[in-house]
């Protein structure tokens, strides 16, 4: 290694340069830089792939994390995937999604009929923990839907989660310490719930509830 040694990023960029090219002269003569280049080449084309079962699980988990963290939420999820998340990944298989939606909706309909209490106590894809948040929906003078809730003691943040008709998650909105949220009348969401958090830790959640507006329950997946 000398003072002229390029950074690892610069060395890695030389991987696509042909051997013998003057730009590689230093790397080919410097053990340190050569080692980094070999390491990068292994990064691009691993010769020691992990066992297939591990690789498949890891690939699915990483994809799920990326979708959740990059595409979806405004809050961070530090925990690793649990059984619930694995099931969600499973149901993301395109062929199974419509079937999953039909089964989910059928269970909801049964719950509604059995309890005779409309959509007020529908349970979503995840079981609610003890001491659920009491949440209600109303409308304001303009017809916008107003979601309100009462967080349990100790919670300092709330996140409103909106779901489509097939119960897939549409969005999460971190509303900080607010206790209500207005939704435009034409919002595509069909169900909602609120998560109450202490810092990043979920403390409690409301039951999944249907958003009004006359749409009713539909089994059509998005």
């Amino acid at each position, binding site marked *: 290694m000398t003072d002229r040694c390029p950074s690892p990023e610069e060395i890695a960029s030389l991987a696509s340069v042909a051997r013998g090219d003057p730009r590689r002269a230093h790397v080919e003569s410097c053990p340190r830089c050569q*080692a980094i280049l*070999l390491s990068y080449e*292994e990064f*691009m084309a691993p010769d020691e792939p992990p066992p297939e079962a591990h690789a498949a699980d890891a690939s699915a988990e*990483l994809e799920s994390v990326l979708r959740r963290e990059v595409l979806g939420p405004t809050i961070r999820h530090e925990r690793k995937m649990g059984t619930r998340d694995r099931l969600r990944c499973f149901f993301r298989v395109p062929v199974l999604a419509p079937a999953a939606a039909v089964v989910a909706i059928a269970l909801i309909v049964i719950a509604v009929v059995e309890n005779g209490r409309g959509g007020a106590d529908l349970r979503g894809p995840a079981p609610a923990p003890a001491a659920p948040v009491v949440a209600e929906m109303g409308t304001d003078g303009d017809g916008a839907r107003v979601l309100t809730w009462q967080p349990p003691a100790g919670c300092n943040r709330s996140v409103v989660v909106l779901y489509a008709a097939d119960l897939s998650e549409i969005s999460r909105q971190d509303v900080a310490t607010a206790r209500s949220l207005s939704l435009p009348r034409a919002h595509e969401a069909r169900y909602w719930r609120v998560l109450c958090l202490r810092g990043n830790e979920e403390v409690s959640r409301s039951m999944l509830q249907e958003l009004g507006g006359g749409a009713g329950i539909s089994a059509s997946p998005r």
Partner: protein
Amino acid sequence: MTATDLQPETPDADLLEAAQAEPGSEAARRAACQLLSRHRDRVYAWCYARLGDPEKALDVAQEVLLSAYRRLSTFERRSQFSSWLYVIARNRCCSEMRRPQLLVDEETDPEHLKGAAKDPASIYIESRSEEEVLALIRTDLDPLEQKVIWLRCFERMSIARITEVLEITEASGARGVLQRARRHLRAALRRRELITETSS
């Protein structure tokens, strides 16, 4: 470029451009997700090769990908995205692993007792700055020994992999070269009277 323009074959550079165009927009997040998703398996495989533990490799790979996402706006595109991502993975993996000691490596020296007291040479090496150690390596080891030491101690590559990538044909592979390099390092330290031990 809009979200609907993103095809599976869209080059990294185009995805990157879309991801950096309007940070936080839906199109940018979709592009970033596709870009990172494309590299997720190689990040995991590389971390696994370094760490040897599937759960730990998954944790580190997740941190690498999310760290890359958070720092995406700082990437200046002076190199390829994969080079940049590799450096993040390398730094993260290296900080996760204890560096194999230059003079004693439990994996290559089976007779070495785990947790045994350090010898004077090891203590001396550990008290030196990285620059001093590198100078010692450069002046007292032959090129093959330097490469093996570097790959093992700084790039955390496995012995089997080092043997393979350096095409070492001697029977003991990289293990033998590594042991020889360590003997040479100890001898160099003694020659310079940097340590007082009489045997290694």
